[in-house]
């Protein structure tokens, strides 16, 4: 595949690995923020190409994983209501709430539909004027523009039966929360390339300056990640702390101004709770006052978010990079993708699922 195979070349990967080995003189801990990067690392065994002293810890960049249980409960409750068509990205359907997931809501008779784009949910609303269509708006800055378009379009069409259950989150405040936490050991970040394609690099420049921490905007293919790691490690070795952008084929400094304008016309920054982490100020998006009629929480008078998470699950510590999935006592025993306790075991981008698929005991010995 053009533009992909070039970034998966085994020989170039080994060259990068040798380069990194030459650059590194002492132990470093860096975090790849995005779950897509985590999966790429484990799928291709990239961590095993790095020198022993370099630790990659996995960040909170998995939209499914950080959506709080309370919101999943609300989704399951809404999906079970007669007259409601609940639309969601497929990934959210298996995330466990307090009393089951969206799959079980569907099995119990709820009309739960997987859509591939938020506008598809608008089309469903248009085709079903007698029913309420709710779209589960999860995701980071990457999904916000498409969700904003859906709301703007529904408003334009005068649709009164369409609403969003908003679980939209933002990356920079989460990085800041990790840096501010007393247990933090992360010394450099591989910033999520897709998010930066929307937001540009400015928010990360502010973070890097404030915390004196190197941040490298990184893509998702093996060579992207090795290059990002190499640049981040070089900054650490040289005592620099800047934002560098080797993922220039996708990310411009100013981001995507059109998408950003769309997002800020529909959404405003709000505090949001992260599953396993808790509330982070200014870390989410909510609908602006003029779009309140499209807010499912207000529309259906949904109850508060408080929900109890399984105490055996260390998802919060995994999402903050404090613990590895395999350090969880429930990993592979009480918690597997078939019966997940926490969201990171569910999602295609979850760190626990990545370890389960690619790194179970005895699996994938070093090449």
């Amino acid at each position, binding site marked *: 595949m053009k533009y992909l195979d070039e970034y998966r070349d*085994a020989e170039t990967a080994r060259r990068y690995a040798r380069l990194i080995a030459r650059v590194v003189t002492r132990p470093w801990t860096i975090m790849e923020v995005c779950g897509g990067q985590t999966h790429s690392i484990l799928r291709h065994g990239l961590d095993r190409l790095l020198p022993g002293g370099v630790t990659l810890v996995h960040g909170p960049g998995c939209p499914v994983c950080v959506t709080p249980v309370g919101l999943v409960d609300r989704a399951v409750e809404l999906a079970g209501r007669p007259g409601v068509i609940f639309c969601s990205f497929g*990934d959210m*359907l298996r995330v466990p709430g307090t009393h089951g997931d969206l799959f079980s809501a569907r099995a119990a008779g709820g009309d739960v539909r997987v859509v591939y784009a938020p506008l598809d949910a608008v089309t469903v609303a248009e085709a079903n004027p007698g029913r309420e269509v709710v779209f589960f708006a999860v995701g980071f800055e990457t999904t916000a523009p498409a969700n904003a378009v859906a709301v703007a379009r529904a408003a334009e069409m005068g649709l009164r039966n369409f609403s969003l259950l908003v679980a939209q989150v933002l990356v920079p405040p989460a990085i800041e929360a990790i840096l501010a936490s007393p247990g933090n050991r992360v010394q450099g970040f591989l910033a999520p390339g897709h998010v930066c394609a929307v937001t540009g690099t400015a928010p990360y420049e502010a973070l890097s300056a404030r915390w004196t921490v190197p941040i490298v905007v990184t893509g998702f293919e093996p060579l992207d990640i090795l290059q990002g790691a190499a640049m981040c490690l070089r900054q650490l070795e040289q005592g620099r702390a800047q934002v560098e952008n080797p993922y220039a084929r996708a990310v411009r400094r100013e981001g995507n101004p059109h998408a950003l304008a769309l997002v800020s016309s529909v959404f405003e920054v709000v505090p949001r709770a992260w599953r396993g982490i808790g509330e982070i100020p200014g870390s989410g998006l909510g609908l602006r006052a003029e779009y309140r009629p499209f807010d499912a929480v207000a529309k259906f008078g949904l109850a508060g978010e408080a929900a109890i998470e399984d105490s055996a699950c260390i998802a919060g510590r995994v999402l903050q990079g404090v613990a590895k999935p395999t350090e969880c006592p429930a990993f592979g025993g009480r918690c*597997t993708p078939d019966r997940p306790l926490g969201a990171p075991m569910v999602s295609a981008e979850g760190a626990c699922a990545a370890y389960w*698929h690619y790194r179970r005991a*005895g699996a994938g010995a070093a090449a």
Partner: protein
Amino acid sequence: MTEPFTPVCPIPINEYPAVQMAHGGGGRLMRSLIEKMFLAAFRNPLLEARHDGAVFPSPGGRLATTTDAFVVRPLFFPGGNIGTLAVDGTVNDLAMCGARPVYLTAAFILEEGLPMETLWRVAVAMGEAARDAGVSIVTGDTKVVERGRGDGIYIATAGVGVVEHTGAIGPGAVRAGDAVILSGDIGRHGMAVLGARESLGFESAIESDCAALWPAVEALLRGGVEVHCLRDLTRGGLASAVAEIAADGRVAIRLAEAAIPAREDVRAACELLGLDPLYVANEGRFAAFVPAVCAPRAVELLRAVPVSAGAVAIGTVGAAPAGRVVLASAIGSERVLDLLSGEQLPRIC
């Protein structure tokens, strides 16, 4: 013996443009449906006996039987439809037993309101697929369910085949030292069906690989290859099929990612949706486990048959760790291939 099929639906549109409850009621309408639709499309002496079942002489030796049900949505997709799928899916299960498919049965569960034209297109496609595969559809059944209680057409089949080898083909026969042969590129059926679903607005030229596999299996058996196991790569794709065989045969299987062919458009569509082509369904592909020494000959024999012209050796079987499949990735690392938990779900971003 067979007349050329008319592409025009034999039940006049002004008479019954759509399936009605009475078409499954056992009366005149049902008889008319069976005669004009199924007898016309499947035409063969056993079916034309119009009895409750089909009686046929036993060919002697071992027989294989299988049963299958088909519920695909949409009913028509690039490269096939539910009818071709029903025939090919059933005959392929027989072929995987090393059996030459001979007879099929077909039960149709139709939804009230299904356009007669749609049923006709499916029936014609089934007739053609059956003739191509060298099987006769010898008996069947028709039921109609109320509108809203079905998905247009469901088809349940059974198949009978004649076992044309003396060995034991199955996971239990797989041995350390076997080679894994893949009959062609993977992922086309699943992506064709996904691409045909209206909610997924991308235009795709990917056609299903739906095809009957017996000619490929026959080539192996006739060519004297010692076949240990055969498995068609349907739901769950190559990865699930191989993981099942590793578990059931208590062997370790090692596959080389770089050797596994998938078309560029299939790989690109999978990338876009966050799916792994190794887990995407096929309907005209299988894996064969043969002693390593037979592998070059097996590949050569398979490549001479159109349905398996893209055959390649993709891996090897070892003893330990039993039950595990390891994929050597293109970039030089290894990962485990396991059964999926539920279906593959497209990712969010």
